[in-house]
């Protein structure tokens, strides 16, 4: 209480994104191999479902949370449940961005050049999810100050 500024810093730092490119060296080959296989397999499953039924039913599986399952399981093994639960909070916001991205692409892919539609679509995902995260961080850090 003697130094309110430092209290503010601690509660904010909890949420402020930090870019640490050096951490990429800590990425374990096995974890990345697991994700590669998950990602590749779900892509093929989506394509097979699309071929067996319709492309739009197959499309549902391109948003199958396979990577989340892989991430949550890997985090849970290496760290703890609380961290896995934190990851799911971020994933919720990322998934809302995913809806915006897929909606945009589905509306523009046949009218725009494909590269432009996909490029703007992924940018929309980034802007919506990071924007929601900023909002979440603001509200959560305010609450922790009270």
């Amino acid at each position: 209480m003697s130094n309110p500024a430092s209290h503010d810093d601690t509660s904010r730092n909890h949420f402020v994104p930090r870019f640490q490119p050096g951490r990429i060296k800590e990425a374990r080959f096995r974890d990345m191999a697991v994700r590669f296989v998950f990602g590749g397999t779900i892509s093929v499953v989506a394509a097979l479902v699309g071929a067996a039924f319709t492309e739009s039913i197959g499309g549902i599986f391109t948003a199958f949370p396979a990577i989340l399952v892989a991430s949550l399981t890997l985090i849970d093994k290496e760290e703890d449940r609380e961290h896995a639960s934190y990851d799911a909070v971020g994933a919720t916001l990322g998934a809302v961005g995913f809806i915006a991205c897929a909606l945009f692409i589905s509306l523009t892919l046949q009218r725009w050049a494909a590269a432009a539609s996909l490029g703007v679509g992924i940018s929309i995902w980034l802007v919506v999810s990071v924007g929601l995260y900023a909002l979440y961080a603001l509200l959560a850090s305010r609450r922790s100050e009270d």
Partner: protein
Amino acid sequence: MEVAYYVGKFLAGGTMVVLFALVSETFQPKRFAGLFSAAPSVLLASLIVTVVLKGTAPASASASGAVAGAVGMVAFAVASAWAVYRFKGLVGSLVSLVPWAVASLVAYLVLVR
């Protein structure tokens, strides 16, 4: 043609997922890095392969299905934030697939079909 299509899907899907995972690794805290766990990596990879080998019409249909799938993904992520804490990683994830399936199906019937 068909074999190339599926091999292309596998390689593109795997590569895109690893790329997003590596980006995610470089960010702290976990809550922020978690955004990348729900990145449209498989969607983008799939669409690129479909556009190149089959054209934009099937890719566009696939993207509209992905809107329904993404609604399911939100349900999955909300459920798993609780379920992973309550159970363990794998079991919590599997439990969360129930709301994923229900929400995807409802969203597909309401929004896409």
